[in-house]
Structure formats: structure tokens, C-alpha cells
């Protein structure tokens, strides 16, 4: 890969907390202008990894380069960060927070532009403590954008938001992507990763266990489709559930040859009135690779 096209280059990154090795020899390249997603179950090392990339934590060993240089003043000026948990200063309004952070950088976008982009206009004079979850996340994104960063880190930005607020936030991230900025995102939501990320890396136990574009990964790990039937219909036909994944009142099976699978079910006398067929999702891949469901 051409080094000029790589925004962040990570090589053999390790981080110890006492005896615990949270990140174990991680290597990856994040290209300029792409949205890179970091997925993994709780405790996989996502937040530690992103904080190492942000320069907030110092690695125990390994290297991180930003545009070919070690993380330094240039990176600090050009990186925008939205942490998973960020407290803001008490008693300051939305506008005052944006003004405060704008003054910490050598150059900044006009505050009015940031407020318009993040839909904060009507909230300008509101005490930041009185914002809803979605409004607060938009303010934090505004703070991350206030100095016109080239690379933006978003650590689980939509956790805890209602579906509508989450979709609004996705639109914002898509507009940031459209500017050509590099986005590094961690998330628990597969739908979010699928919609926003150009490439993803799935982490478990401090290591990357798969990476690529979402479609590439699905193609690489799955063929065929997923059949879903009511559990009761299968039990009525005395079907052995060993190859089925049971979830609440339905059971799913991954099949390579859809026609042959449907014929076999008909022969065994399974009613197909409530049959659902779907493509594989990142959730399937995640469960396949990590052996556990994502937890928000």
C-alpha cells in the first residue's frame, strides 16, 4: 500500500495493564478518507485500541504512525475525538463549549457552521447538562469537528441512543465521510457498521481476527442463505435441532444449497408457511467468529 494513502499505520501494537495484555500484537492500516470500523465483544480491547490510536494511551510496544510520522503535535491538531464517556464543564452552554474548544486549536471552523451541521442551532444557549442523549452526542461530535480535523475517532457514539437519534447521528457521520475525512469508529451495532464503514476489523482477546469490507467478509465466511422457521413447526415434524440455532420462538439454519434444503424440509413434513429466508449479516459473522452475540 502506498504510504501516502495511509492515514494511520499500526504495527505490532501491544498494551499491558499490569499482568493483563489488553492489546496483543495488533497491526492494521487505515486509509485516508475511509471509514474504518472496529468491532468486538465487551472486553475485546476495542476502547484500549482506539485510545492508543488517539494518543491518549501510550503503547507498551509497537508503533503508530499518522501520515508516516509518530503521533505528535500535527496529529493532535488534525485529530477530532469523541470519547465513549466524556464529561463536559458544568454551567456552560452548547455555544460556550464549542467556543472553548475552538480556542484550544490554532484554526477552527465558524461556530455557526458547526452548530448548523450538527443541528445544534436551537440548543445554542442551553446548559449542556440539560441536553438529551442524542443532543449531547451531537454536541460532542460538534466539539470533535470544531477544528476541522482530518481524522475523526468515534468510540461507540450511538450507544444508548433511541433508534431515531441513532439514525440522525448516522446521517451526520455520512456527511463527514462525504467531506473526505478519515473516520475510525467502534460500535456495538452491526447495522451501524454495515451502513457506515468501508472496512471493518473484528477484534477478540486483543487481536484482530478478521478484517476487510463488510461484503468481502460475508462472502469469505458464508455461502448460501439463512433459513428461519418457527420452532414449533420443526418440533411438530420431529426435526433434529442439532444443526439449528434457536433464538426465542424461531430456529435458524445456514444452508449452502437453498433448493435442496427446502426440498428436504418438505420431505420431512415441515410446514413452510412461516418460512423466512435472509442473507447473512455482520451479526452472523460476528457470532461465527467470536462465538458470542454483541452486547450493548
Amino acid at each position: 500500500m502506498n504510504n501516502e494513502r495511509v492515514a494511520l499505520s499500526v504495527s505490532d501494537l501491544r498494551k499491558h495493564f499490569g499482568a493483563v495484555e489488553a492489546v496483543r500484537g495488533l497491526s492494521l492500516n487505515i486509509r485516508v478518507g475511509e471509514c474504518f470500523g472496529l468491532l468486538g465483544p465487551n472486553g475485546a480491547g476495542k476502547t484500549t485500541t482506539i485510545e492508543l490510536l488517539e494518543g491518549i494511551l501510550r503503547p507498551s510496544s509497537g508503533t503508530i504512525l499518522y501520515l508516516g510520522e509518530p503521533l505528535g503535535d500535527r496529529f493532535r491538531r488534525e485529530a477530532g475525538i469523541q470519547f465513549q464517556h466524556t464529561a463536559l464543564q458544568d454551567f456552560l452552554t452548547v455555544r460556550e463549549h464549542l467556543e472553548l474548544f475552538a480556542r484550544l486549536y490554532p484554526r477552527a471552523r465558524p461556530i455557526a457552521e458547526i452548530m448548523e451541521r450538527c443541528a445544534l442551532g436551537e440548543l445554542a444557549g442551553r446548559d449542556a447538562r440539560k441536553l438529551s442523549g442524542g443532543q449531547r452526542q451531537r454536541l460532542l461530535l460538534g466539539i470533535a469537528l470544531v477544528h476541522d480535523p482530518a481524522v475523526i475517532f468515534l468510540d461507540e457514539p450511538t450507544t444508548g441512543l433511541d433508534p431515531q437519534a441513532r439514525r440522525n447521528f448516522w446521517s451526520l457521520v455520512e456527511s463527514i465521510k462525504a467531506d473526505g475525512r478519515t473516520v475510525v469508529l467502534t460500535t456495538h451495532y452491526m447495522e451501524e457498521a454495515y451502513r457506515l464503514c468501508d472496512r471493518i476489523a473484528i477484534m477478540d482477546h486483543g487481536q484482530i481476527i478478521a478484517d476487510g469490507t463488510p461484503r468481502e467478509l460475508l462472502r469469505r465466511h458464508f455461502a448460501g442463505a439463512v433459513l428461519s422457521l418457527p420452532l414449533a413447526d420443526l418440533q411438530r415434524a420431529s426435526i433434529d435441532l442439532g444443526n439449528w440455532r434457536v433464538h426465542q420462538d424461531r430456529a435458524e439454519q445456514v444452508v449452502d444449497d437453498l433448493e435442496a434444503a427446502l426440498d428436504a424440509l418438505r420431505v420431512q413434513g415441515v410446514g413452510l408457511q412461516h418460512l423466512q429466508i435472509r442473507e447473512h449479516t455482520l451479526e452472523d459473522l460476528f457470532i461465527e467468529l467470536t462465538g458470542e452475540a454483541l452486547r450493548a
Partner: protein
Amino acid sequence: MRLRRILAITKARNIEFIRDRSALGWNILLPLLLVLGLATIFSGDNQPLYKVGVMMAAESAELPTGDAEPLMNLRFTQFVPEFDHDRAVRLVERHRLDLLVDFEQRRYWINSTSPKGYSLERMIAGLPGVALERAVVTGEQTRYVDWLVPGILGMNMMFSCLFGVGYVIVRYRKAGYLKRLSATPISPAEFLIAQICSRLLVIMVVTCAVFAATEWLIGFPVLGSHLTLLAVALAGAVAMIAMGVAVAARTTSEELANGLLNLVTWPMMMVSGVWFSIEGAPAAVVWAAQCLPLTHLLDAARAVMLDGASLMQVADHLVILLLIGVGFLCFGAWSFRWRDV
């Protein structure tokens, strides 16, 4: 650029303080109420015991016994060793000593307008074997409340400096706000300077307001220059804010910070002379008090207010305060951590 960042953080912290009405009210009302309450309680009153200064040749010398000097047998009297004759005479002039005696010169000094001095003189006259030459000084009495005002203002500054900086930094760190700032170009030194500037501004404004209000309400003398007094207050505030920075440099628990700040403030309040003079206290206490910034702040402020001391006459206190400030600030900047790792 650095100044711009410092000013931005300073402004944000000031807004936070001003809009936090409970904190603002507490900072202004507490000292005002204390001064007014104590002024009422101690109006027209002096300390309950007779206080006699005894001139000593050296700090290692011991007070004479009652066998050697019958005057030392007086009951209900506190004998305080004094080593600087001019200073001791000033204390008699200000009624802070009821009588001063120099056994080597066989002489004593009293204030002709002091009722206690008069009483003591009558008692001495009744003692057998006491032959001392009389010297008279004059001067207005220092009311207890006049002496107390600098103490209470200084105490309020101490709490405001230490808790207003130390506790706030720890709260910022625990909440993750410092972590967010660490992702910006601001340096620890710039952040700490901004905190100091913000608190210094707040403290000076609040202290001047309370000073003016108490001066108007109860009236007290300021024999020295107000500008000198301002310089003393500034130096004291810098020293105590720096202490707060040092305590908060890497503390991550609000409970621990609270304990550490109390550990620093309470002894200062007790031995630095806020409520009463520590003259006559055990040598170890006096020595310990000299290590504390509040002692130097109060000694200098009282010297300016009650004795009319000039800037040069309190320069030693100012130098010590600034040294304490620089020392703690260097330690705080060196050991500062944005987050709890």
C-alpha cells in the same frame, strides 16, 4: 497561541464559578457572617488572661522562675518570651501585650491607656521584692475583631484556594473532562496556569468585596498601604493555590482529595493564627506554623493593617510565600496526570 488557550480555559472556569450560585454565595457569605458574628460576640472584649511579655537574651534561654523573679508568680497571667525589643514595645502599644518586662534592665513598659496594664501594675506594686523601673508607652488598642478580620479573610482564601482548585481538578479528572482536554493541543502547564489565573481572579475579587463590606459594616484600621495589602493577598493566594494544584496533581478519588485537603487546611486553620495568636505556644508549634503559607499571609497582613508595615518590612513573608508557591507549582506540574492511569 498559548495565551489564547490559557484565556479560554480561564474564562470557562470563571463562568462555571459565577453561575454556580451556591459556591459563589458560600465564598462571599461565609466570611462576612463569621466576621459579623464574632464582632458581635467579642465587641468591646479582650482576651481573658493577662499577657506579659518577658524580654529574653536568646531563644534558647528559659523564662525565669518565680523564685528568681517574684513577678513570675502572678496568677491568671500568661508569660510570653519576647526577643525583639522594638516589636515587643509595639505589642504593648497595641494592647496585645498588657505589660512588657526586661529583668536584665530591671524595667517594665505599660500602656497608659490599658485597663489591664493598670491592673497588672497595681498587682506588681503589691508583690514583695519586685523593684522595676516604669516606662510608659501610648497607643490605640487593637480590638480583637480588628485582629480577627485578616484571619477570617485569610482562612476564607485558604479554603477557596485549596478546594476551589484542588477539588475541582480531581472532579474534572474523575468525570473524564481532563481526558477530553488531553486530546487537544493544550499542555498540562497551560491548563494549570489557567486554573490558577481563574482562581486568583475570583479570590481577589471576592476577598476585596468582603474586605470592603466588612470595613464599611464594622470599620477597622488599615495603617499601612492598601496596595501592600493587595500584594500580600496575591502572594498568599498564589502559594495556597499552588498547594491545591500539588494535592490534585494525580489524585483520582474525590474522597481522597477531600481528605488530603482537610489534612492541609485544618492544621493551618489551627496553628497559623486565624483565631488567636500563637505567641507563647510550644516551640514546635511555632516552628511548624512558620512552614505554612497561611501563617506568613496573616503575619504580613496584620503587620500592614495593624502596625502600618511597609512592603519592605513584609518582604520576608512575601518571598517565603512566593517560594512556597513556585515549589508546589513545580511539583504539581511535574506530577500532573490527565487521567487515572
